């Protein structure tokens, strides 16, 4: 067991975005996190990263924080900042360099290899502001590669990315999975989930279904997810379920 959530409620002010969630995720799982907009998927990832604290319940992780890598949604990265592709990818070596350390030659080779694997050879000196959406996503994946984390959390990794890049990045995710890494990805393309992700969690603030993808992504489960999501009440009473 690499991760377990016990009666977990996450939210903003007192509004729950994830409500009474209890799940356990095995080491090496390749899990898709699906659900309607506003279902709490990104909030759950932020909770797992420790960026927001539980309003109730707990998260237990059987690994160090440094062994978790997180890919934020692209919109959260300021691409106008004057940083080159190489400098951005080298930030992935933080576990080894920390805030002050120099980038050793082994890490420089790692950065070069990551750029190569993501098809970014020749882009080393390019500024981030000159990249397309797909190229930027490759850069962020290259940084993940350099991070060498045991658990990888991906927040909408294919939004605004063309099909060829998506296929390349999916292959990378599968190779990480083959290496035994645990991967949790927020996704919207259900065909993609069915083809590439053996496990899924359908979330609509509460866990609607969790397990094998085929049994989770049923029409009945989606109906329930949408109904729960639409029932969001700004003036709801205090929750009494514990």
């Amino acid at each position: 067991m690499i991760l377990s959530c016990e009666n977990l409620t996450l939210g903003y002010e007192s509004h729950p975005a994830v409500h009474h969630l209890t799940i356990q995720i095995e080491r090496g799982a390749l899990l898709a996190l699906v659900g309607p907009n506003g279902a709490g998927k990104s909030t759950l990832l932020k909770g797992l990263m420790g960026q927001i604290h539980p309003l109730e319940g707990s998260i237990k992780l059987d690994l160090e924080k440094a062994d978790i890598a997180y890919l934020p949604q692209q919109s959260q990265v300021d691409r106008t900042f004057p940083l080159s592709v190489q400098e951005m990818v080298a930030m992935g070596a933080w576990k080894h360099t920390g805030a002050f350390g120099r980038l050793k030659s082994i890490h420089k080779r790692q950065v070069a290899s990551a750029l190569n694997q993501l098809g970014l050879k020749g882009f080393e000196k390019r500024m981030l502001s000159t990249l397309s959406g797909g190229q930027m996503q490759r850069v962020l994946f290259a940084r993940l590669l350099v991070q060498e984390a045991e658990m990888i959390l991906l927040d909408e990794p294919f939004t605004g990315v063309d099909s060829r890049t998506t296929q390349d990045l999916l292959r990378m995710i599968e190779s990480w999975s083959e290496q035994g890494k645990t991967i949790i990805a927020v996704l919207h393309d259900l065909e993609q989930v069915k083809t590439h992700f053996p496990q899924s969690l359908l979330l609509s603030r509460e866990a609607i279904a969790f397990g094998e993808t085929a049994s989770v992504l049923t029409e009945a489960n989606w109906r329930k997810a949408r109904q729960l999501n639409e029932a969001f009440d700004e003036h709801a009473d205090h929750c009494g379920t514990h």
Partner: protein
Amino acid sequence: MFELLVLPFVEFSFMQRALVGCLAISLSAAPIGVFLMLRRMSLTGDAMAHAILPGAAVGFLVSGLSIQAMTLGGIVAGCTVAVLSGLVSRMTEVAEDASMAAFYLISLAVGVLIISMNGSQVDLLHVLFGSALALNDEALYLLGAICCITLSVLACVFRPLVLECMDRLFLQSVSRLSPIAHFSFLVLVVLNLVGGFNALGTLMSVGMMILPSAAARYWVKSLDMLLLFSCLLAVVSCYVGLLLSYHIAWPTGPSIILILGSIYIISFLVGANGSMLTHLVKPKHLTA
């Protein structure tokens, strides 16, 4: 030519002192300005310059025109506003610019109140416009110390600060340094504004931060070049501004800022990156 460009600095010790003081401010304030600009916080420098006023005023009331007292007061007032507005924005839903605006306005009102009830307009003019040509030993030591502290702290928090500016979620995922990077940067902004007000005055010292980086952006692209080039522009402007001030008897602070302002105007008109000229004259495109 020697008489025009070098002799004033050889003959007069007040010109040497002014040059050394202004160079120290250039080397510390310009890099801070680059980060302010990249974080889209250019106007924060202006807000913070107002925020240090009550501290400087209290320092003046307690010890007269004592640099130590006014500096200490300015640092306390500036850091209080920076930390309070940072805390309020991190603990509530309100963005930092709004909370900073609120706190600096309160601070400014307190400052003006203290000065108008106890001081005179001459004192206020000193705080606003400084006196670069009357820097004593204490002021020079202070400016040198602020320059050393700024460059050392900036070197220490450089990597986290870059990430704090452009990918805060990543920084938060790999370390706990996000608030340290943010607040130490704000403290550096305050330190430099306080340092600047001795030589140039609070309002003019903001120009030493913002104008070099704003102009440099039109010439260079990478972060290291932006830092170097903005320092260079600040140093050159100080030198030319001091000469202007000497030869045609202009007040020093405005002279330096006007030189920087002219460089900024030239930069956005004809700079190599994204200037008006590059928009008007479209070069031939390269092969695909």
